[in-house]
């Protein structure tokens, strides 16, 4: 295989990885703040893909552009969901939270199957098969646009957590819950915002993915698993870790599918997961538990 092919695969992997990273970031934010694992994360990504598919069908809206309104809508959904369904489970044992969210994922998948059927769907964009060429290296246009959009959303999120008072209050609640209650932070509201932000990430990422791949209702579990792998490799609760983990998994999977075969993709990312868990259980960017 030629050198330029490796460069190409590497770049494609990083670009796809940024979109994966954005999806995983949502899982990481929800877990890092609310301490609930969103087992329906991949199903929400699929839901966003359908939303993007429908918007494309109705208004010919580019899924990458649609990622913004879909993220906004998902924020509202996440906020309401935390306020109504998830909040009562925050102080319950983990296996009860697990049942709640797995139950939710099953509802989503079956609702999608009932409404849209099991067929795979895709969007035909004018630039779907275009690419930029850098010498001998070809890079898909769609991936470049998708990665750029993912970066924009991620940067906005970093800025929100870093520079706004609400962002600081969310970090405070994640840092010291007793301290948050002591100073009178409205923790339930902050949890709702965090769940909303988490779903906004997966909403934007799912919508962007609609421009990159085909989609079926059954894609959910594998995306949930993908997000888990990324978050654990990058380090639970670390935003930079989720993004870096996304790129790492993106590159690893892309390389594996050209060197060996596409079907070996998940094996490579799980091997990476096992390796990280064995050598650095807190993840690449995670802090060791005291």
């Amino acid at each position, binding site marked *: 295989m030629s050198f330029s092919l490796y460069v190409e695969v590497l770049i494609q992997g990083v670009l796809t990885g940024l979109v994966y990273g954005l999806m995983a970031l949502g899982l990481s934010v929800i877990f890092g703040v609310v301490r609930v694992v969103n087992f329906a994360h991949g199903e929400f990504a699929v839901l966003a893909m359908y939303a993007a598919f429908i918007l494309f069908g109705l208004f010919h809206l580019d899924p990458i552009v649609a990622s913004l309104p879909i993220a906004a809508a998902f924020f509202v959904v996440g906020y309401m969901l935390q306020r109504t369904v998830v909040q009562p489970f925050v102080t319950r044992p983990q296996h009860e939270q697990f049942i709640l969210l797995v139950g939710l994922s099953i509802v989503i998948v079956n609702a999608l199957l009932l409404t849209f059927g099991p067929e795979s769907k895709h969007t035909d964009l004018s630039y779907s098969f275009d690419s930029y060429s850098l010498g001998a290296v070809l890079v898909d246009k769609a991936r470049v646009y998708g990665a750029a959009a993912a970066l924009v959303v991620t940067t906005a999120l970093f800025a929100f957590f870093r520079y706004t*008072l609400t962002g*600081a*209050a969310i*970090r*405070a609640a994640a*840092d*010291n819950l*007793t*301290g*948050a*209650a*002591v*100073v*009178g*932070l*409205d*923790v339930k509201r902050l949890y709702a915002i965090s769940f909303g932000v988490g779903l906004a990430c997966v909403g934007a990422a799912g919508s962007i993915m609609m421009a990159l791949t085909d989609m079926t209702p059954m894609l959910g579990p594998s995306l949930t698993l993908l997000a888990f792998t990324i978050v654990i490799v990058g380090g639970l609760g670390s935003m930079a870790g989720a993004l870096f983990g996304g790129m790492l998994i993106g590159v690893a999977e892309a390389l594996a599918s050209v060197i060996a075969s596409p079907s070996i993709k998940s094996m490579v990312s799980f091997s990476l997961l096992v390796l990280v868990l064995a050598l650095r259980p807190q993840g690449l960017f995670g802090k060791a538990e005291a």
Partner: protein
Amino acid sequence: MLVVENLDLCYGDAQALAGVSLEVRQGAVVAIVGANGAGKTSLIRAIAGILKPKRGRILFRGQNIAGLESHRVCNLGIGQVAEGRQVFPTLTVHENLLMGAMIPRAKKRRAENLDRMLALFPRLRERTGQAAGTLSGGEQQMLAIARCLMGEPELVMFDEPSLGLSPAMAQAVLDTIVDLNRQGLSCLLVEQNVAASLELASDAYVLENGAITLSGTGAALLADDRVRQAYLGM
């Protein structure tokens, strides 16, 4: 200003408070004295709305606040300098202070209060950009006090504010409390240095196994044989 009536509190089956009643008058310093595990922190957390009492009333300016959520209690003007300081370790000193002013009552004068706090605690001014977790114990206690004052409280509950501090730092914390009280702040004080807290206090209560067993003026309890034996080692 604050009246607690017949408060019961349980952790599961274990009763932590049984029929606790006390009063903090406007402008007073009221001390609570009790051994480890007596229920002092539980009492403060129940008043703050962090723990839900099983029975009893907590009246603040005549309004029953028992069972109210903690952020609402805070917004009424009841602040807390909690046991173990409870700063936000990864947030900067500046951000920690701002978190004290997130309640609606304190939003308007946030910038003004921030300047006031940095003038009051110069050691914090030098460290505004530093993560709170990197401060010394004494500095963290100053931060916890300043953060609480950012919320413009009328009553502050101090839970062992000098625990783990050097003698000089502990004295500085107690002096700060005296100063704040002179400026009109009402205080509920739980302090391991029982002699010092009874000297400051206009009124005091002894809490044993979750129940009030003795009460009186600070001076009276300081002279009481039972208190001297049990808490002052005399």
